[in-house]
């Protein structure tokens, strides 16, 4: 049902003639617990409105399949969630509406409200939707270093600080690593090496880029080979755990939660899970420098209106989005779960999330880290990203299990990835 015309509103305090009706939202499955209270709070703030949410699978292939099927059946919700890597594809598929409509609608939330690097993840840089913004970040998540304070205390090691570089991290991780019968029983560091949030900032720190001028991968560059060698050498040494080890450690959060890894490189979104599982005290620090400069990975999930939502329920959808990003609206409820750093710059120092009881105590790290964020190039099509992930995992196994050379493994991966890249770019015209 179409909502009544919207009076300008930002959060509950400013609603004058709040729209009413039913708003449909598709959310990612792992967000259900944290978003249910958000929806309840919105319904309480907007009597007469009702949010009807449905759950989407969060794994890439299933998410795409579900949303593409719903688009073909004309059954999209008014608002849908997505992961950053799908913005271009979903925009071209007609799943998402251009959010410039909302950002330029005269409300309090504009493009300038958001941390630019995170909004830029949804700015389409090529193709028929070029220049459009197809998503609004839910949070501003950068990779930081989580560490188990008890492990450090037991080993009589000082906690990580801003002076750390990669070599120092390896040195400490080696001291924290425990082995038995040749098998590592506790890893010094858990880090997903074949994850763009690890290798993109690393290659940048070494003075290069992931893609060449033609937009193809250059994994065999000196910087790339050096970066992957730095990490995979430590995986081979049994000091770092990467994807190959995570499969049996219950993923990266499981490794940290069970004490199988003393440090991990991960994001704020995992804090609720980590708080539930880690029994020891823990905290966070900035990512160590590489080659004298600090860079870190970044990413986000987002929400966007759909073309159906824009056509049939625009007023209510815009009202919800406005309320969602308000300090006393959705952001307050959502940040109380510990899962989100607000993407709205005005809230970077807000007590709604900085005053939450520890751990983590050093919450400033999450906001400070944004200045060092490097995103995965948005020109990489989502179809190709799945090939990249698969090929880099194989490269990791080639090096760490079979003892192959890093250069050869990356050369093989690059050939397959660039084949897929060329095929997809040709197919998309």
């Amino acid at each position, binding site marked *: 049902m179409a909502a009544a015309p919207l009076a300008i509103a930002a959060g509950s305090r400013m609603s004058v003639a709040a729209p009413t009706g039913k708003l449909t939202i598709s959310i990612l499955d792992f967000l259900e617990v944290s978003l249910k209270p958000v929806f309840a709070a919105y319904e309480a703030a907007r009597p007469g409105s009702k949010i009807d949410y449905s759950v989407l699978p969060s794994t890439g292939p299933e998410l*795409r399949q579900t949303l593409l099927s719903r688009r073909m059946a004309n059954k999209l919700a008014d608002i849908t969630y997505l992961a950053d890597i799908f913005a271009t594809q979903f925009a071209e598929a007609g799943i998402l509406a251009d959010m410039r409509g909302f950002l330029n609608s005269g409300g309090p939330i504009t493009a300038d409200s958001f941390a630019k690097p995170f909004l830029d993840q949804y700015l389409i840089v090529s193709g028929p939707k070029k220049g459009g913004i197809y998503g609004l970040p839910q949070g501003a998540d950068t990779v930081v270093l989580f560490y188990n304070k008890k492990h450090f205390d037991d080993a009589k090691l000082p906690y990580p600080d801003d002076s750390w570089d990669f070599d120092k991290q390896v040195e400490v991780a080696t001291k924290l690593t425990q082995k038995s019968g040749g098998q590592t029983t506790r890893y010094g560091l858990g880090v997903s090496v074949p994850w763009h949030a690890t290798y993109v900032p690393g290659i940048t720190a070494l003075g290069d880029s992931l893609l060449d001028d033609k937009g193809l991968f250059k994994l065999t560059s000196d910087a790339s080979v050096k970066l992957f060698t730095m990490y995979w050498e430590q995986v081979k040494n049994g000091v770092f755990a990467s994807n190959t080890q995570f499969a*049996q450690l219950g993923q990266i959060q499981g490794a940290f939660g069970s004490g199988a890894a003393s440090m991990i490189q991960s994001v704020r979104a995992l804090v609720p899970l980590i708080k539930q599982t880690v029994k020891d005290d823990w905290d966070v620090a900035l990512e160590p420098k590489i080659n004298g400069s600090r860079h870190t990975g970044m990413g986000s999930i987002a929400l966007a209106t759909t073309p159906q939502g824009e056509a049939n329920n625009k007023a209510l959808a815009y009202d919800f989005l406005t309320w969602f990003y308000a300090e006393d609206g959705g952001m307050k409820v959502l940040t109380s779960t510990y899962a989100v750093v607000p993407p709205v710059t005005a809230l970077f120092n807000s007590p709604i999330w900085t005053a939450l009881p520890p751990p983590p105590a050093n919450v400033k790290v999450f906001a400070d880290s944004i200045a060092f964020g490097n995103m995965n190039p948005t020109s990489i099509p989502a179809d190709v990203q*799945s090939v990249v992930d*698969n090929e880099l995992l194989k490269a990791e196994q080639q090096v760490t299990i079979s003892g192959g050379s890093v250069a050869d493994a990356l050369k093989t991966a690059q050939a397959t990835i660039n084949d897929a890249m060329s095929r997809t770019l040709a197919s998309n015209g």
Partner: protein
Amino acid sequence: MGKTVTELHAPAPAAVSRLPGSGRASPRVAARRRRALDGAAALWALLFVGPNLVLFSIFIVVPVLAAFALSLFDWNMIADPRFVGLQNYADILRDPRALNSIIKTAYLVILGVIPTVLLSFGMAALINTRFLGYSVVRTLYFLPIVISFVASAVLWRFIYDPRVGPLNALLAMFGVNGTNWLQNTTWAMPAVSLVIVWLRLPLGIILYLAALQQINSSLLEAAEIDGANSWQKLVHVIWPNVRPVTFMILIINLRGIIFDSFDVVQVMTGGGPLDSTDILIKYIYDLAFAQLRLGYASALSTMLFIIVAVLALVFTPPQNPRAVR
């Protein structure tokens, strides 16, 4: 000598001659009556088979035909489909990952089907006796069938865990240093196939048990009287009697291992390490839903369908023409 189906349906000549108006014209009447009876039989057959046929067509035949049609296109669910003819089939021959996954699938079939058939038969024979608590033992054997594939895969992943898994702990008690089973290119597939065999045993045991209990005990008694020992009874009496069931179990497991092993592989190894468990169904899934290459994935699916259909025909037990009649 037995009668054919037609003979059984046809009225006896004597009966036909007793029909009103019969006489010299009776052959025509008999033929008409036979046609009427055949028509009624066909109607009944259609009534019983019809609903199944409709559902089979909707859920099997139509998707198979649609998959074949899709295999002639290049389509990513976003742009318009582009007709490419048989190009997708030609691409299979040039795709090293496709060829690798065909080999891995064949390897899994060998590691999975043969042990499943043999172990099912052996275990069914062992529990085909009444002893104290036999129903409890049978229930334990059937337990895997009620556990979901994904739950089983998670359970076995823990069993294989080199750090905390019970398998390596058990081996260590005997002084054997267990490997990292699921991250070893040599052992990953046998480790996965063991889980698949474990999951598929119950159905095989049930079918063999049913077949064993159908064997006429007088045959076994006669064999004993003739002085046959246990092995000879197994080879000359029991095995021939369960042979049709063996073919059925073979085909069921062949199809099941090729098509239904996706969840176990996905959860336990994700197709790794280094594609050592990258079976065809996993690759098709990646192509269709991770890379959105639906046309190429459909070409591989069609090829897989043809392979399984041919194998099913090869392993279908030879029919006795007399039995048909």
